[in-house]
């Protein structure tokens, strides 16, 4: 059997990608040539070449997005999703009884109640779908904070108890968390991967519909050549204005981009690290991540693992499909601009690392393109910045070279802009037309416009979202440029927990993070205006305006109150807010209100409380190698009090069964009132002394 007969989509995909390449390269070259006609003989050669090169590259970059959106728009308007031969949607098979799926939820210092709520919602949804027999859950903790670790354990046991899910929901905490999330998943594969044919990887804030999970399993069962099926998670549940803008944009514009992306990718799709199902055996065999030569940030362990895992899976002959038609896959977006940029900082470093894999032997060209695309997401920022600087230099050169006195005066008609209007128009078309395509698609779908608050509100929301996007773009550009420069200068980023609650940005924080942007905007405006004159300055107004407004933008958009106000006025409404899916309703904080809460110091509670101590101690093993040190730490805790133990020392005691038992017994057997207060028992004892019991009364 020939390869093409086995993988019929390959020839189709290659043909489509040739067209995409032509659509990207030819217009970019044409636009560059036209601009050259304008710039030729008016700028010095070095400036002309540099400007044209960067312009063509950026034009190609934005046109790739445009063509993807256009193809997606055409597909969606035709009322069909792309199902090329070999698509996994075409061949579903009922899961075999022995098919087992592990749902992995790697967590790291997360808000435990939110994780529990998400897991519970997914669990119950699977239960309703009648598919629970095939699925088991693994909470894979990399948490280092002992307080959170103890909460995780307690919540795990309470969840299992309440859902009657002992043996269905597992919990594992890695004592050493090397290679972050990818290392956590790899640790699962090494320990338990052999027992599960498939694994679904979730994020700590992911929620998935049970029927969707079952459909993914059916696709995997029906397509033994598929290694990964990726869903398109949609952003939900946030209340800050910033997050609601992101949610709205993702819901409105996301479908056409997703459909277009699927059209180009076919079986060479991408994997975003969560809300996807993976075939465990090939993942374990082929997808262990290489460690790059050199030191971090560009060398060392890969920070951004997902794209590389997809590339390694495809390199080994397995197909990776992106299936945007799978609904019921949810995630949450960062609540504020600061949190979004912190995430971007990690992504920037990770995506730049991918460039070191570009020449990797055996990688498929589609994945090499994804590596370039990912890196360009961040490299585009300094390129835009450079282009603007070159543009400003060009304008300066132009006006200085002019013989008349039009440097500062503005006369409609007499002062001619150096940038041809039509080129500006084409660029604006490429950037903005996907927004209108998305609105047209929504407007033509029966019932869908109501899910966005109706056509007038949808248009108004799109207008405001576009304004915010334009204002945010230069801030992102400034920060992304900073991230790229920092990475290239060798300044790495540390793995940190993500913010997953609607915490607003204080003015002080906004000033600390974005003050330099606002200052830069004001200084540039002050410097450039006298040189450029009004007309040339107007062109820079969106950029300088966005930079200058960085502090208030960051502060105001982080306000949950403003987000709620917008929702009340049906602005930035998303379908999940109009028709709330059952699994999202289950995320309500009341749904996990029954979970036990730890008041005060969790370490003290786990030592003192006989029930909590029993649960935690039963889950530990005797670590005899630690005993000499643990014994000293126990004495330290008893003599000086638990507050004098560092987190590291607490972790040592907490991870040893004998230490926890000994401490528990020792604390309850203390008679020193001063020491008892450290363990919260003094009040108990005092009360008892005040009202002493007699042995003969028992």
């Amino acid at each position, binding site marked *: 059997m020939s390869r093409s007969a086995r993988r019929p989509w390959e020839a189709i995909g290659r043909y489509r990608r040739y067209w995409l390449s032509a659509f990207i390269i030819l217009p970019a070259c044409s636009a560059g040539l036209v601009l050259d006609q304008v710039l030729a003989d008016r700028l010095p050669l070095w400036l002309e070449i540099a400007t044209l090169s960067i312009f063509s590259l950026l034009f190609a970059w934005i046109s790739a997005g445009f063509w993807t959106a256009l193809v997606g728009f055409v597909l969606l308007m035709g009322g069909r999703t792309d199902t090329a031969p070999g698509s996994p949607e075409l061949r579903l098979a009922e899961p075999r009884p022995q098919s087992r799926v592990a749902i992995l939820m790697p967590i790291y210092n997360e808000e435990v109640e939110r994780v529990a709520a998400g897991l519970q919602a997914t669990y119950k949804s699977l239960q309703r779908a009648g598919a629970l027999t095939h699925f088991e859950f693994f909470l894979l903790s990399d948490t280092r904070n002992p307080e959170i670790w103890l909460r995780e354990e307690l919540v795990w046991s309470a969840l299992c108890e309440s859902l009657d899910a002992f043996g269905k929901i597992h919990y594992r905490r890695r004592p050493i968390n090397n290679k972050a999330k990818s290392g956590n998943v790899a640790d699962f594969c090494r320990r338990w991967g052999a027992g599960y044919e498939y694994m679904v990887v979730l994020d700590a804030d992911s929620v998935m519909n049970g029927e969707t999970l079952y459909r993914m399993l059916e696709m995997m069962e029906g397509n033994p050549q598929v290694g990964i099926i990726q869903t398109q998670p949609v952003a939900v549940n946030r209340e800050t204005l910033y997050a609601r803008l992101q949610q709205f944009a993702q819901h409105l514009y996301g479908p056409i981009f997703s459909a277009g992306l699927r059209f180009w990718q076919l079986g060479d799709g991408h994997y975003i690290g969560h809300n996807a199902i993976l075939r465990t055996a090939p993942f374990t065999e082929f997808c262990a991540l290489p460690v790059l030569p050199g030191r971090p940030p560009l060398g060392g362990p890969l920070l951004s693992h997902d794209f590389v895992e997809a590339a390694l899976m495809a390199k*080994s*002959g397995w197909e990776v499909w992106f299936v945007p038609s799978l609904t019921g896959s949810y995630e949450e977006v960062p609540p504020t601009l600061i949190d979004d940029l912190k995430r971007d900082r990690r992504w920037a470093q990770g995506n730049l690392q991918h460039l070191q894999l570009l*020449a990797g032997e055996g990688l498929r*060209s589609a994945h090499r393109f994804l590596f370039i695309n990912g890196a360009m997401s961040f490299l585009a920022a300094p390129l835009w910045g450079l282009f603007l600087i070159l543009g400003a230099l060009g304008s300066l050169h132009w006006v200085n070279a002019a013989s008349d006195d039009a440097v500062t005066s503005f006369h409609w008609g007499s002062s001619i802009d150096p940038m041809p209007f039509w080129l500006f128009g084409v660029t604006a078309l490429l950037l903005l037309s996907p927004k209108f395509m998305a609105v047209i698609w929504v407007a033509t779908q029966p019932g869908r416009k109501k899910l966005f608050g109706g056509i007038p509100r949808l248009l108004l929301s799109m207008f405001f979202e576009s304004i915010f996007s334009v204002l945010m773009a230069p801030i992102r550009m400034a920060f992304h440029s900073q991230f790229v420069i920092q990475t290239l200068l060798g300044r790495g980023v540390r793995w940190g927990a993500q913010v997953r609650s609607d915490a607003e940005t204080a003015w002080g924080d906004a000033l600390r993070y974005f003050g330099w942007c606002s200052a830069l905007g004001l200084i540039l405006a002050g410097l450039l205006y006298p040189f450029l004159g009004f007309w040339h300055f107007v062109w820079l107004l969106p950029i300088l305006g966005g930079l200058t407004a960085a502090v208030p933008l960051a502060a105001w958009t982080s306000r949950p109150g403003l987000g709620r106000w917008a929702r009340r006025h049906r602005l930035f409404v998303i379908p999940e807010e109009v028709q709330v899916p059952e699994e999202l309703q289950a995320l309500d904080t009341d749904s996990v209100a029954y979970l036990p809460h730890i008041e005060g110091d969790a370490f003290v509670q786990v030592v003192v409380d006989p029930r909590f101590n029993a649960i935690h101690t039963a889950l530990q093993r005797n670590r005899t190698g630690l005993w*000499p040190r643990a014994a000293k730490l126990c*004495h330290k805790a008893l003599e000086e009090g638990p507050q004098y133990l560092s987190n590291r020392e607490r972790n040592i005691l907490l991870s040893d069964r004998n230490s926890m038992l*000994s401490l528990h017994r020792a604390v309850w057997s*203390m008679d020193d009132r001063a020491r008892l207060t450290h363990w919260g028992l003094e009040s108990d004892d005092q009360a*008892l002394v005040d009202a002493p019991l007699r042995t003969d009364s028992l």
Partner: protein
Amino acid sequence: MFKDETSYSIHPTGEWRTGWTGEAMVVANNAPVLARVERYLARLSLTDAQRLWVRGQIISQLHGIGMEGGDLYARAFASLHMALATLTDGDELDARLDLSLRLSVGESHDGKSSRWLQQQMAPAIQRRSMASRPMNRSWLAAAGRLLQALFSRRPITARSRALPGEA
């Protein structure tokens, strides 16, 4: 105190007292001890019968013991834990665990609830290796491969996976 590689224990007063042998001492008033025991028992979901029985066991153990201070507390809680262990016919930890998870004390999982809980937390491990494979990332080699593909007119293809049933 750490004694050897097989076990260690600690004394509630912090330092190991020289000559602490549990010799008879006068107990002036052991009511606070019993009151603390009572508070401990209140944190466990014992039935009335179990509570009464455990109390009785502790009192009988303390009866006639001439201790005071930390030694008396230690003795009382040792008795308490012994009584709890007797409830499960095994380990006091299992008894506390049964009570915490609202299981029938001593009757669930052959009285080995802590082992059972560990099994629920993590299924049996089936080890499998997962190591990254070597990958030639040289740009020179990549250029060579590209030239070879261009001139030999053979497309660069990824190794195709053998499907089940194929040779």
